């Protein structure tokens, strides 16, 4: 099992690039295929962009994990931003409040195997996603 957790502070659009590069490198290190590493990197890019667009700053944490019968990777995107008032709406395709293509959360859910979101208005949002290695 490769070295522990990597945390990337997200403060600007440059950090989005950094986070997805680190995510891809970790996915490769964990033995994910190039295709799956791309899915993970794309999900990280969307999650980091949500942080920049909605909360301005936050963090992406990346970690290798062990499931019951296979290894995987955990990505946690957290911020102390305004939070999402209506999560079920945010998980519907096409939903957007910032003039972008949307929060991208339904897309992120499709890119990864497991998806979990907690958000408190005024307190922030945490999205935890996992991808398992084939």
């Amino acid at each position: 099992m490769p070295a522990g957790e990597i945390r990337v502070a997200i403060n600007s659009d440059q950090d989005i690039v950094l986070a997805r590069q680190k995510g891809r490198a970790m996915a490769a290190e964990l033995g994910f295929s190039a295709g799956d590493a791309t899915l993970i990197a794309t999900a990280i890019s969307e999650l980091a962009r949500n942080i920049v667009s909605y909360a301005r700053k936050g963090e992406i944490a990346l970690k290798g994990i062990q499931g019951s019968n296979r290894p995987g990777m955990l990505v946690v995107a957290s911020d102390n931003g305004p939070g999402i008032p209506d999560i079920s709406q945010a998980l519907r395709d096409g939903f957007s409040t910032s003039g972008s293509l949307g929060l991208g959360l339904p897309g992120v859910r499709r890119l990864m195997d497991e998806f979990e979101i907690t958000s408190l208005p005024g307190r922030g949002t945490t999205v935890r996603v996992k991808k398992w290695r084939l």
Partner: protein
Amino acid sequence: MEVPILKQGEVLIATFQAALSDADLNHLRSGLVHQVVKFRSRAVIVDVTAMDVLDSFASRTLREIAHMIRLRGAETVIVGIQPEVAFAMVQLGLTLEDVATALDLEEGLVYLNKKFKTLK
């Protein structure tokens, strides 16, 4: 990060690098449109072979570039979307459906030459 834009006759060729930030993409969008005006280009090829991720922002920027350039009366072709990048884009619901795409630079030029029989 600067994106090299090559002028080849009436075609502009922009080659994207792997690590383009949102600001770089915005910069490129305005840069390309200005160059199309300046050189009276009839077509633009955007080569994204090196891009390892095309997320919602990059995808939206590509569409905007194509639409702006179309309003100028020129044509845009996106070339070199990698197979795994295409898969991730479809999962995200990004299909670039009204933008011309081609396998690589060579195929992009073939497409444009067919479209404009008189391309120089």
